[in-house]
């Protein structure tokens, strides 16, 4: 049967649309398109709503207020004054956070690895004690631990008047004080000599090591390196006139100690709180990483006559690290983010200072956005570094 030309075309078009609507590829793409559009509309609506409400109250989304005088003083960190602008105080808080996080990561790693190895120790007492520590710290909230550490332990130490003196170290609830080396005349010359000695020592160590690997002769790389790195600065200290470094002792002056180095109760509180909490998780990761290395590896190492320490250092840990690094990254990120609990123990970290800034200025949206951005960048940097380490430790497969 012959249909007129235009109606045939119309029918074909109809069939085309029908076919299109039954095509799963098209339907999936359509669903995705609709979803993306909905998300965009929602975002537009939320931002528009926020902007309208802020406009209605005469508030904008500008960051210009950060240049205004802050009129407050940050209690700890690089010196700050009430005449400094908000952005400077923000920086003070950021540096405080970076201090806690960097020292915290280092200490948590050390404590975590030691505890993880100890959990597999054949010594019953050590193993049980470490297990008790890990279970206790993993299963209680961090904030509670922080309060306990700060209010329950650190602040119950005696005040400055009845301070505990422990050799050159002074312990009180106003902080831990210790002598500090202060550079004197002749320090630059001594420092330069020491630096050169260090470089040369490191070079010698590498060279001797290479020779040993190549020829098998005992060249004593560690001895030569150590002799240069320690011996030369010591010799220079004796030969050079005067003392390049002198110890400055803390002294009580009026209401506070002056001189020396000080660890404030707040910094100690947040730092050790984070370290012990995170190390408990790291310990378990390390333990599981070690157990993940096949038993045959240990047996082979023992058959070759390696000692227990050598087996751990040269055979087990390098292989365990591949299993350990990815979950470790999570713990590092947790530590960095948990550092925002510092306000609970009065440590002026990024979060604490930001809170003061948005209270003084009233610009909550901007300050919180800025803070989120800063924490995000910090976390991304930690992740990136850990990813590089992870990539380098992977077995190269062919």
């Amino acid at each position, binding site marked *: 049967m012959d249909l007129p030309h235009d109606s045939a075309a119309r029918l074909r078009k109809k069939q085309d649309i029908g076919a299109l609507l039954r095509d799963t590829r098209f339907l999936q793409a359509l669903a*995705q398109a609709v979803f993306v559009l909905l998300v965009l509309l929602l975002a537009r609506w939320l931002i528009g709503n926020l902007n309208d409400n802020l406009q*209605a109250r005469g508030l904008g989304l500008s960051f210009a207020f950060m240049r205004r005088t802050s009129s*407050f003083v940050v209690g700890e960190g690089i010196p700050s004054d009430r005449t400094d602008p908000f952005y400077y105080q923000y920086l003070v808080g950021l540096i405080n956070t970076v201090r806690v996080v960097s020292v915290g990561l280092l200490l948590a790693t050390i404590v975590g690895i030691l505890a993880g190895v100890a959990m597999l120790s054949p010594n019953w007492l050590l193993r049980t004690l470490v297990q008790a520590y890990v279970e206790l710290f993993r299963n209680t909230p961090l904030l509670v631990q922080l309060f306990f550490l700060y209010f329950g332990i650190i602040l119950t130490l005696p005040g400055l008047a009845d301070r505990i003196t422990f050799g050159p170290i002074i312990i009180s609830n106003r902080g831990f004080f210790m002598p500090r080396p202060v550079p004197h005349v002749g320090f630059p010359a001594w420092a330069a000599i020491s630096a050169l000695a260090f470089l040369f020592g490191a070079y010698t160590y590498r060279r001797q090591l290479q020779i040993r690997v190549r020829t098998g002769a005992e060249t004593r790389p560690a001895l030569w390196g150590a002799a240069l790195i320690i011996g030369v600065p010591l010799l220079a200290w004796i030969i050079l006139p005067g003392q390049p470094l002198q110890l400055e002792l803390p002294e009580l002056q009026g209401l506070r100690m002056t001189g020396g180095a000080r660890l404030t109760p707040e910094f100690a509180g947040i730092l050790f709180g984070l370290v012990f909490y995170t190390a408990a998780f790291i310990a378990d990761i390390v333990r599981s990483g070690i157990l993940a290395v096949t038993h045959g590896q240990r047996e082979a190492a023992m058959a070759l006559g390696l000692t227990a320490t050598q087996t751990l250092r040269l055979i087990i840990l390098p292989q365990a690290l591949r299993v350990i690094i990815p979950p470790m990254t999570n713990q590092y990120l947790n530590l960095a983010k948990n550092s925002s609990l510092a306000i*609970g123990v*009065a440590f002026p970290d990024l979060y604490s200072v930001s809170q003061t800034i948005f*209270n003084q200025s009233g610009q909550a949206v901007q300050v919180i956005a800025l803070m989120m951005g800063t924490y995000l960048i910090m976390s991304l940097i930690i992740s990136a570094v850990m990813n590089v380490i992870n990539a380098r430790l992977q077995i190269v497969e062919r």
Partner: protein
Amino acid sequence: MSRRFRFVFMSVLALSMLIAACQPAEPVIVTQEVVVTQEVQVVTTQEVQVQVPVEFTMESARLQAVKDRGTLRCGVNSGVLGFGYLDPAGEYVGFDIDFCKAVATAIFNDPDAVEYTPLTTTTRITALQTNEIDVLIRNTTWTFGRDVELGTDYGPTTFYDGQGMMVREDSGFTSLDDMDGATICVLTGTTTEQNLADAFSSRGIAYETLTFDKSEESAAAYDQERCDGLTSDKSQLTGIKGNLSNPADHAILPEIMSKEPLGPVWAQGDQQWGDLVRWVVYGLIIAEEKGITQANVEQIAAGATGETGRLLGSEGEFGSLLGLDADFMVNVIKAVGNYGEIYDRHLGPEGTNIVRTGSYNDLWTRGGLIYAPPWR
């Protein structure tokens, strides 16, 4: 992959164009209804008298929203003894709370028609800005910055406070000038931090601050001698002092570091709502001035004339101008009493015992600053 992406992208584009086409541009139409009734009376002496009573429909949008909801949302303190706290039964009690009740009574004739939102120093202004609450009565200091920049409006001051410093008796401090090198505990998110910096830098004294998030934490740190002084509004210091392990060992220094006028706050943009809150507070002050109390208000209202009559609704139409009942102040005073009664109940000898006689918080007729414009 890229083809598929292009496909998705084109579909998004097509869909968004379709939706854009469906949305006509909306012109902004502002409708304002003003009913003007003009009555012209021609008198035989050829003089023309013109009376122009103008009836504005000026109902507050927020008042309407509150009436529709059936409750007043009030932002309050939940842990400051005397001003706003939870009693053992879990009820909100305090000086500030009674002003919430007063406003609720003015609208609903029910002091319990209040939805309390406990707020911290950091969330209170945001709660107003985001319309989470109708009015904020929570020891909030009226400052230029907050008033002009943050989109909030301030009602009459209900309590004149000032920042003080609490120290241990055995420290030997008798004034701020003695406190060189001291460590001071302070709360974040308050004007206190700024006042402290101002007070110490103007005296050229070195000091260290410890900034806490919660009042309980800063009090605990002070109690454990981590800091030499604790600074806060004097009214709050009296409350904190009572909770320390040995209250008698502590003293509050005589200096006042700042002016802290505290009162109700609301979001800018609804003048009529502001008028309502403002005049409920003024009404309570006038009531004290006139000796109208919780006990005698009904008796006085029966035959009241003059300002008392206008206040209690027997003369004039003051209630309806605010969108309220004519006798709303009778209900308010019946529910919470006058300003003096509220003060005595929470801050007087039975409460936290903040001396009123001779302070700024006494009535203006007795030399204080509590003063209300005339009700006419």
